[in-house]
């Protein structure tokens, strides 16, 4: 995907020069390998810093909330779905945006790559679908398919759903994947086993809230975890508090989560936080036939009422 870089730079410079946008939101090279930083380019020089590779996993829609002026934004499939969600939720107007669509072939999982080696990974190079990982005294080339982040490996919306211009040709969508395989495994367990599964899953959590900060859905001015009057959730490392935080965070994403995986990517402890939201995504699909962020003309299931809404749980 590195060949998108030149096209992205060219489009960004053109838009800025023509005055069509005030800023272009994209990525630039990070100071550490696989850690590209979100970058706001306001001039041709800073647009030169824009890049694109398989480590652009964070969700750029996160930087749109309540922005003023005309904005150019680079959007892969999941970003574009979150942009749609932002437009639906009135956090940005569609006519403020110039969306540069990037058909995506998946992002690599830095947790997975770091776990493959004992030494520190110093450099990650990409050429076609081969990724070369190197460091002090070692170098290994692996097929990108094996390194994909879990959400990218089962992604069925790789092409942007909304865009004004494309930075490359549309890619074929994956059809032979089951996005909810991991949820089904957990569903098959007993209540006690499920409890233990999630207990182990969130055990390393340090309550840093990086998952919340990386999430484009989490834009409340004051998050419920930071409120003190009333204090909705305990602030300790007690397992009950940790679980309460994760459950509530997930519920706030119900019917809105696009499974972009920004939360997992941002997690310093490598927790599979998506296990919570995936279940809600699966429920939304099964109960309402809804996948978030596919169309700006459709209201989400949780803010519409239909006579045939499922209500078997109300006795």
């Amino acid at each position, binding site marked *: 995907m590195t060949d998108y870089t030149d096209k992205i730079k060219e489009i960004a410079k053109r838009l800025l020069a023509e005055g069509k946008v005030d800023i272009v939101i994209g990525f630039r090279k990070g100071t550490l390998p696989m850690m590209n930083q979100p970058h706001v380019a306001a001039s041709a020089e800073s647009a030169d810093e824009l890049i694109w590779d398989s480590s652009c996993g964070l969700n750029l829609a996160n930087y749109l909330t309540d922005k003023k002026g005309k904005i150019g934004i680079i959007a892969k499939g999941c970003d574009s779905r979150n942009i749609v969600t932002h437009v639906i939720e009135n956090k940005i107007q569609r006519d403020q945006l110039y969306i540069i669509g990037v058909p995506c072939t998946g992002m690599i999982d830095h947790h997975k790559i770091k776990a493959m080696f004992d030494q520190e990974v110093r450099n990650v190079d990409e050429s076609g679908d081969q990724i070369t990982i190197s460091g002090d005294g070692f170098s290994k080339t692996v097929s990108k398919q094996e390194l994909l982040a879990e959400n990218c490996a089962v992604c069925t919306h790789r092409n942007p759903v909304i865009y004004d211009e494309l930075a490359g040709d549309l890619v074929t969508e994956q059809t032979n994947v089951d996005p909810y395989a991991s949820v089904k495994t957990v569903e098959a367990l007993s209540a006690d*086993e499920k409890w233990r*599964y999630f207990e182990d899953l969130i055990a390393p959590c340090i309550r840093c809230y990086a998952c919340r900060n990386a999430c484009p859905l989490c834009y409340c001015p004051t998050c419920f975890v930071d409120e003190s009057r009333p204090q909705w959730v*305990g602030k300790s490392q007690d397992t009950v508090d940790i679980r309460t935080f994760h459950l509530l965070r997930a519920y706030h994403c119900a019917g809105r989560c696009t499974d972009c995986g920004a939360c997992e990517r941002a997690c310093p402890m490598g927790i599979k936080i998506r296990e919570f939201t995936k279940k809600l995504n699966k429920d939304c699909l099964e109960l309402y036939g809804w996948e978030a962020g596919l169309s700006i003309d459709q209201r989400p299931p949780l803010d519409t009422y239909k006579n045939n809404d499922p209500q078997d749980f109300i006795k």
Partner: protein
Amino acid sequence: MKNLLEHTGIESGRLHFSWISSAESTKFVDVVKKITAEVKTLDPANKKYVKTEPKVA
């Protein structure tokens, strides 16, 4: 709501939803009786769901 809680390991008899009008006192009593009966068959909640003694002060 019920689905995810149960998915994370909360027993299915612990969470109940009901629609009761303020005029339906008998229905309210019936529902509460049914719920308490059902919840009593489960393990005591303080085993998992209640912070009896915080692990971190």
